[in-house]
Structure formats: C-alpha cells, structure tokens
C-alpha cells in the first residue's frame, strides 16, 4: 500500500509541512512519521469520526440561517518554538501599539496633533464613536485576534488586526479536544503546548478590568442570541468561565448601574464581555431599533459602574486604512520597529496611487476598510472582468473605503480532501488576552484553511475549515512513552470490594 503523502504535490506557494516533495520540515518530522504509515482508509475513518464528534457536540456556526459543523482537518499545523516566539512577541507589540492608539483616540488625540495620522482618517472612520469619548478605561483591547499569514518566501506577515470582537477561540479549544480523542497516538509521541488555560486567563483579565470600587465583580458574557453565527462560542466561553451568558433582554440599567433579571430579582453586573457589535449595543446612543443590547449601557460605563470589554469604539483601530499606519504608530508610541511586517498596502486617497491602482486592479487585492469575515474582498488576478469594472466604479466613488494590497499566495498545508492530502491555503489567528499588565497569548491560535482548491479567503463564511494548531516546546521532541503518572497504580491497601462482589456473583 502506498503511503499517504507519496502522491502529495506541492502547490505554487510556501508549504508548511514539506521542504520539497517527500522531505518534511524539522518541526513536522514527528507528525509525518506518525501519519505516513496510516492507510487512506484509516485516515478517512478517523476524519469521519472527527466530524462525528463535532456534530454530536454541536460545534457549529450559523451560515444563512442554518447550523453547520465547522470542518476540522485531520492534519495539524505545527509551529516550532522559535516561530511561535516571534509571533508572540510581534502580537504583543501590535496589541500594545493599538492599545496606546485607542487610548489616544478617545483621550487627547496627540497622534493627530503631531501629524502622524491625518485627522480626516479619524473623522471618516465609520467606527469612531463620539459617544465613547472620555469613557474611562485602563484597557480597551482586552481580547485581540491578529491575523498572520506566511508569504511565498516563508516570512510571516500581519494581514489584519481584529480588536472589536474577534471570534474563533472556541474552535481552538474544541479542535484540540476532538483531536486528542480521535488521534491520541499523535499526542503521545510529542509534547504540544496545551490550550486549556484560555478561559482562566480570560476570566482573570475580565475580573481585573472591573470598576475599582468592586471587590468581587460579576462578569457576564453578552450574546446576541442563538441565531448569531458565533453563538456556540459565546456559550462555550461562558460555560468554561462559569459565568452567566446573558442576552440584551436579561439586562436592565437603572441609575447608571447594570443589573441582570434573575428568579430572585435584580443582581448587579460589573463586567460585560460583549459579543454584540457597537452599533447594536445601546439603542440610546447607536441604532435606536436594536433589541440586542440594553439601553443605558454606555452611560453606565461612562459613570464607571460597569466595564464593557472590548471597549466601545475599538473599530477605529482595526480599520484597514489605519492598518497601513500601524508601523508608524509603533515607532511613535513604542519606539520600535515591527517584528512582523504588514503586507504591502497602498492608500488610495492619494490621487496618483488611486490612478495607478485603478489601472492595475487585475494585479491587486482590494479590501473594504471596515469589512469583516472576508466580505467584499476582490482578488484581482482571479476576478472576472465585470467584477473589476464594478469594483473600479466603487473605488473611484469612495477611495477612503478601500485599501489595495499586493496579492500574497498564502502558505499551504496538506489537508485531507477526499482520502488524500492536498495543499490548501492557510492563515493563523493567534488570540491575545490583555489584563492591563501583561499581554498573554494562547499557544497556537486558530489555523483556518480554505478548502476549495486554490481559494485564498479562509473565512468560515466562505467555505473555510480549520486545523488544530500545535506549538512545540523549546526542547527537542522526545520519542518514546510518556513517563508514568504518579499515583496511577492503586495503593497496596486498596480493597476492590465491589469487584470482589461481582466475582462472587459470576461463580
């Protein structure tokens, strides 16, 4: 029987697993050795089992009103200790920069006075909320998801920042659980850094963010409800943190304090980890017709009685035009150079750049600056003529609304398609939790994979799946059995009285 990777043909991009056909990179050698002998049938069987675990546990996202399981690929993505160290430092640097920028935006706005970022960018940002100005906050980015890709040369690049309500961490936790159930042998042979610390870290950071006068804060997770695409994640996080999962209708504000309605009356709430967008959060200040939020939240936050995490108005920092200024901001606030560079991007506000970009739409990627979930992205080299024509019109009408980037062939990783591994493009979203003193990173993060052949957009809403993401520890992998657990053998005086009773019965 042929081994499963024998027919694996590299695509025209950096491959995460193979240096050249048949030769795995050092970090992947353990995985390669474990997977290679498995037959196609075996692999298929495990993949089906994996899908089954997800369906049974209800690990789904809502797409077009329908619950779908989020496909998990059987072959993990591996990062060695050095790669992870670089990513972790770069993400920390990025989060600290955006934190400082937001503090400035909703404070003195010195960065604009100093001319580092033009004022018009602030005023034209759809996510700059005047209503959030002056709300006290020690931390504004409690949770960040910074999307990182690897380009054709194997260098990491930051693709975009997410500091509003980044989602996907639940899949990291569920992926690891499902993988360790389905392919326990993989984990026995090498040590992988665990991911289960996340809920504890998140709760710690949220509690620390509570208003100063509260000694034992009540934290809640605010969800838009069961029809939200990421509802599964909201419920999982609430469960793992042991806090209430509330909807807007469970909350009331009175005298600038927030309460939840319980069977024993109203109970105060101090920290709201909200997964509701700014626009829907408070009908007094934002969309008046929203029933997802709770009227009065923003005023309560301004009065210092409740902390909203992430802070209101963070969208101004993950605007894709601000993205192009992040290296400048890093220099301005931290005096540092970026550890991981941006993808080459072009601001279309400059008339010459605009003309140049319009002439070269077929060779660029165009992104709406406030889009999320891969919506509205046009990949020039793959787009048909009509799309490019209507794109040109849209861009000319609103140059502030778009940013142009060099198309990057995302790195590929072998993914099980049918019963064979094939190269598919992937990215990485590491999750950072900021408690004000320290920015902690969940080891690994979410590797998303674009399952259709050649597809470059990895979002789940665009037919994406995910992979378990392994970070290897600093020391070399140790083959051989894991050390026996202390206390695994029963102590000598232990009397198995019940089994003795069964023995008697069987006679």
């Amino acid at each position: 029987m042929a081994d499963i990777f024998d027919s694996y043909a590299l695509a025209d991009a950096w491959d995460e697993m193979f240096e050249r056909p048949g030769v795995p990179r050092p970090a992947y050698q353990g995985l390669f050795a474990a997977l290679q002998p498995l037959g196609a049938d075996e692999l298929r069987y495990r993949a089906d089992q994996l899908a089954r675990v997800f369906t049974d546990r209800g690990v789904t996202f809502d797409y077009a009103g329908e619950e779908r399981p989020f496909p998990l690929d059987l072959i993990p993505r591996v990062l060695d200790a050095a790669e992870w160290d670089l990513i972790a430092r770069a993400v920390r640097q990025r989060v600290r920069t955006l934190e400082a920028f937001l503090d400035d935006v909703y404070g003195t706005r010195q960065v604009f006075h100093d001319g580092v970022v033009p004022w018009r960018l602030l005023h034209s940002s759809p996510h700059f909320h005047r209503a959030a100005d002056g709300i006290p906050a020690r931390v504004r980015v409690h949770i960040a998801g910074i999307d990182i890709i690897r380009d054709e040369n194997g260098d990491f690049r930051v693709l975009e920042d997410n500091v509003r309500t980044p989602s996907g961490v639940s899949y990291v936790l569920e992926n690891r659980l499902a993988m360790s159930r389905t392919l326990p042998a993989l984990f026995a042979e090498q040590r992988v850094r665990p991911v289960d610390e996340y809920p504890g870290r998140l709760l710690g950071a949220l509690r620390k963010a509570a208003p100063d006068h509260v000694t034992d804060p009540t934290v809640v997770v605010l969800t838009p409800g069961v029809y939200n695409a990421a509802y599964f994640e909201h419920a999982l996080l609430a469960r793992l943190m042991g806090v209430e999962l509330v909807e807007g209708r469970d909350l009331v504000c009175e005298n600038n304090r927030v309460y939840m309605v319980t069977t024993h009356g109203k109970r105060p709430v101090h920290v709201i980890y909200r997964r509701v967008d700014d626009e829907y959060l408070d009908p007094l200040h934002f969309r008046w017709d929203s029933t997802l939020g709770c009227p009065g939240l923003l005023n309560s936050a301004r009065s210092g009685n409740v902390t909203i995490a992430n802070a209101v108005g963070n969208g101004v920092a993950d605007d894709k035009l601000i993205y192009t200024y992040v290296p400048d901001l890093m220099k301005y606030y931290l005096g540092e150079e970026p550890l991981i560079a941006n993808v080459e991007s072009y601001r279309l506000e400059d008339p010459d750049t605009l003309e140049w970009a319009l002439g070269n739409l077929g060779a660029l990627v165009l992104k709406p600056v406030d889009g999320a979930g891969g919506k509205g992205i046009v990949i020039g080299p793959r787009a048909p003529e009509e799309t490019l024509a209507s794109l040109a019109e849209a861009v000319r009408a609103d140059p502030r609304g778009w940013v142009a980037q060099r198309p990057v062939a995302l790195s590929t990783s072998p993914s099980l398609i049918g019963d064979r591994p094939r190269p598919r493009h992937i990215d990485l979203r590491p999750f950072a939790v900021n408690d004000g003193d320290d920015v902690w990173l969940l080891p690994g993060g979410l590797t998303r994979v674009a399952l259709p052949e050649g597809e470059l957009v990895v979002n789940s809403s665009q037919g994406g799946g995910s992979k378990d993401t392994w970070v290897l520890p600093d020391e070399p992998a140790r083959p051989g059995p894991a050390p026996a657990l202390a206390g695994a053998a029963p102590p000598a005086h232990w009397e198995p009285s019940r089994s003795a009773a069964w023995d008697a019965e069987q006679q």
Partner: protein
Amino acid sequence: MTRELLSRIAETLYWIGRYVERADDIARLLDVALRRALAGEEDGTAVFAILGHKGAGPQTAETMVGRLAYDATDPGSISGCVRAARENARGVREIISSETWECLNVTWNELPAMRAAAERLGPHHYLRYVRERSAMFFGLADGTMSRDDGWRFIVLGRSLERADMTSRLLAVYHASVSGPPSPASPTWRLLLEACGADESFTRTHRGDRSKVLEFLLLDRLFPRSVMHALATAEQCLAELAPHHGRAGMADAARAAIGRVRMTLEYADTASLPEQLPGLLAALQEAGEAATLAITDRFFQHTAPAGWVRGGSSWAGV
C-alpha cells in the same frame, strides 16, 4: 450556596423538562394506542383528544404515527417536542452539563435515521428510542447537575407535565380501567405498561385490576403516579421559594398544587371510579393555575423595549 438564575434561563430549563417529558409521554401513549388499534379498539380519536387536537376524526395507524411522532413542524408531536427541547437546550448550553446537551443534540440528529428504520421495522422502534433517550437525558441531568435552582426548574417542569399527562391518560381510558371487567380488552394492562408501571403494579397489587386507577392516581411510591409527581413539584417549589410565614401560603403555585394533592391524599379509594371525573377536572385546573403562577413569579423578564422614533418622551434624553 445556590446562585440565582436568570429568569430567561429558568424558564428555558422548565420547558426543557416539560418537552422531554412530553416527548416521552406521547411515545408511551402512542405505543398503547397503536397496540389497541391492532385489536381494533382504537381509531385515534381518543389519542388526539388527550393531546388536545380538537375535532380529529378517525385515523389510520400510519396517519396517527405521522402526525404524532414524525411531524417536526407540529409542536405537539414527538419530534416537535425533541426539537423544542433541543433548541431550548441550545440556548442554555452554558448552564446544563455538556453531556445533557449532547444527549438532546444527538437525539435530534438521529431522529431521521430512527424514522427511516421505524418505517421498515415498525413505529415501536422509534417510540422506544425516544423513551430511552428521555430516560438518558433525565439520568444524565440527575448524575451531572448540581441540585441548585436550575435542576429544580427542570424537575418542576417534568413533574407538572407528568401529572398532567397521566391524568389525561386516565381521563380518556378510565372507562376501560374502572368499568366492568371485560377480559377481551387489554387496555388496562397497556395503560400500566405505558406508565412503565406493569411490574411494580403486579408486585404491589398482584394484578388486581380494580386497583389500577388507585395505583396510577394515588400511589405515594410509584414515580409516575399523579400523586408522586405532584409531591415532587410541590417540593421543588418549596425549595425554590421557601415560605416562612406562620400561616397561609403566599406562593399561588404551591397553594394550587398543595390543595389538589390534599384532595387526592385523603380521597376515598372505595368510590374512586365515581369521583374520577371531578378529580381529573380539579387536577387540570390546578395544573393551569400553577403554570400561570410560576410564570408570573419566576419568569418575569423585561419585555423588549419598543421605541417610538421622534416621540415626545425622547425630549429629555
């Protein structure tokens, strides 16, 4: 220390308890009806009447199963109840244990396959599956949930639903359990089977069929009897909202259930068949009153605010 529950969650848990129990009860009821139909004693009218489908005429076994078991769009069918229980559970996943959630989720996912199998092997296959899964759900809840208010709301919902269903069952079939013995009619035995009471009854009353009514209505030890269900519901309510007054009862739900339980408690067993219509009417009434009172007391979440754009009340904001 028990933690307060969000009203919305309390209500959801209560309804999960009711829906799972209802799916179980309909499956039991349908099993009886189908076997009666085989004996030519049943045309579905009675079953539809029990479940509150008004004006349903005679049905074949197939249409009966189709409507009461497989039709997920009908909230009064088994699959409709499983679906409702599962949807509700999806909204409180962070409260119930993941095993109980997985149990309901898998049950819902498997129903189509069970239906396909039942169409080859007979409806009993499907009905049995539903009963097993509901037993599994309550077993898992029993084994994995803390005995806090969340647990009490599930048990409360289950108990009220059970008292309601058992009394409905008796209302329709009481002629065959209390009337003169007609050895041709197996209904009284089927009724006992439907309540899972067959063996327990035989052991207690040695198959004396004049005691069937007493057993299903008044037995203090059998868990599916009306009496036992009412006592459990009362216990839950007492723990949910302890009453410390020296006299009277401020909790309307507990009062309603307590009164009807007392009536049953001291009912004259000798004249039970004659009293039955009156008792059953009182039971239905008490059930309704209790449900209303529980909703009133525990499930008062704020209604979503309705905004009037440009209304004068906005002037001060």
